[in-house]
């Protein structure tokens, strides 16, 4: 196989069909950009889950009278609840947070916002913060054991709150993947069409190649490489788009929750992790589409 010949044919082909090539590159880029966004969402979801698995607690909020009168969980009601929890094998540790501590945390959380000034220490309940050794069974067990007990106001499972965040991220992922699929169909059709047009514009060359006994690979390879090149270029543009998107939009959009540690930030490293996947998808889809098109529609 003479590589110089193949390279020359590919360059000629791309140049001859320049508008089609640009359309193909852009469609592929948008499609792969969406796939990349979806992959980043998946990665963020995984990271967030990891982040929360260490931190998620079940909070047992105490009634206002217990909260007000017991600063260190030394009185019978609170101490009883605490020891019940501590004796459970599903519980790793129990920490008591009194009204003052809760107020400090609240102020910290809503620092600079008017909400922080509205709240008095007395309006916040003291809580028993339960860290579970068994995330699944533990939460239900704590809920069942604590609900309705004397001194217990309610039981808050932080996972319920986090689940909403995951639902949102999952939604982002699903929407981007759905859009990516639609775009991918458009990209596939464009690649197929471009290969056909490319083969048509070069029918004289291909005719001569067949007549002088060029092998199928020699006749088809330039078209395949052309498709793959556009796929790869599309993927690279998609990666560029993700980087631009990160710095221009995502960083700003997520700045609040990232700095509070609610979700992990999207790093350049994440995009670098995504890029080879996009390049492989781009090249692979283009190659397969090109090959199938040549087999089905183009007589070489």
């Amino acid at each position, binding site marked *: *196989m*003479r590589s110089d010949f193949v390279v020359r044919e590919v360059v000629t082909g791309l140049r001859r069909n320049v508008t089609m090539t640009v359309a193909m590159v852009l469609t592929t880029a948008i499609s792969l950009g969406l796939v990349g966004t979806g992959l980043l969402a998946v990665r963020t979801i995984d990271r967030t889950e990891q982040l929360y698995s260490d931190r998620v607690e079940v909070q047992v909020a105490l009634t206002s009278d217990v909260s007000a009168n017991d600063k260190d969980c030394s009185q019978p009601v609170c101490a009883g609840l605490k020891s019940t929890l501590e004796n459970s094998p599903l519980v790793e540790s129990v920490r008591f947070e009194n009204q003052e501590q809760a107020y400090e945390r609240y102020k910290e959380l809503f620092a600079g916002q008017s909400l922080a000034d509205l709240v008095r220490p007395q309006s916040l309940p003291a809580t028993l913060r339960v860290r579970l050794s068994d995330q699944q069974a533990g939460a239900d067990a704590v809920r069942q054991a604590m609900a309705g007990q004397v001194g217990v106001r309610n039981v808050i499972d932080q996972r319920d709150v986090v689940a909403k965040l995951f639902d949102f991220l999952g939604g982002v992922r699903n929407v981007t993947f759905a859009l990516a699929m639609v775009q991918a169909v458009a990209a596939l059709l464009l690649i197929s069409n471009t290969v056909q047009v490319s083969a048509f514009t070069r029918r004289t060359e291909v005719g001569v190649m067949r*007549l002088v*006994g060029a*092998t199928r690979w*020699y006749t088809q390879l330039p078209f395949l490489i052309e498709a793959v090149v556009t796929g790869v270029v599309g993927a690279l543009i998609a990666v560029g788009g993700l980087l631009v998107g990160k710095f221009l939009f995502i960083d700003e959009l997520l700045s609040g929750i990232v700095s509070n540690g609610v979700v992990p930030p999207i790093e350049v490293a994440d995009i670098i992790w995504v890029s080879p996947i996009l390049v492989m998808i781009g090249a692979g889809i283009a190659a397969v589409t090109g090959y199938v098109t040549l087999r089905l529609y183009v007589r070489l």
Partner: protein
Amino acid sequence: MIDAKYADVPSGWSWAPRGRVGCQPDVHPPVASASVIRLERVTKLYKTSTRPALDRVSVAVDKGEFVFLIGPSGSGKSTFLRLLLREDVPTRGNIFVSDLNVAKLPRRRVPRLRQRIGCVFQDFRLLPNKTVGGNVAFALEVIGKQSATIKKVVPEVLDLVGLQGKAERMPHELSGGEQQRVAIARAFVNRPLVLLADEPTGNLDPDTSQDIMLLLERINRTGTTVVMATHDHSIVDSMRRRVVELDLGQVVRDESRGVYGVGR
């Protein structure tokens, strides 16, 4: 699948010198081993037509022969050439080019067949965006020849066809006759066993046609078998080479040193 297709060919049947179908004096006793091209009772039916394009055609062409394939339009000349090139497969019968059984050749070996056959057409089929040299070199590049070989061989073949010094010209800068010479150079550059020419003089004036015929004759003298389909009476009559005449898909005449036909 191929076997089933040819199931109606009697299994014991072999190509025998019983004479060509409908042929006149059998002046070419076929010697199978020397035949470069051999058609054995080849029939080609197209779906769109009830009459076969070729009807039990048996022809053998020896190495180094020059054969005119004549006949009116629709007589089967083009089908004959297409089958030799494996552009199409016969409905029945066998075709051999050198030692290759063309009809039964697997697809992946078709390039090997075509590398042994050079082709020239009425419309030249040159690549308009490549130079004369580039057109000829293209035929070698696409079959993977080394560039050193190409650099050596292309000028030689351009000399042979009388285009020395014109390697850098573009096809549109050449006359019709010169363009056909480029096409012949391209067909011959890989030293094929057989040169098929489909009305190569169809677009040329008589004088230029004569030059092209001299060139084809010169190529024939190198030992290359030439099969030329033509309507040109004067050329056939003046060359006095073997003439195979087709009519309605059948060989109606096969004579050495023939003419186009009396009273035609």
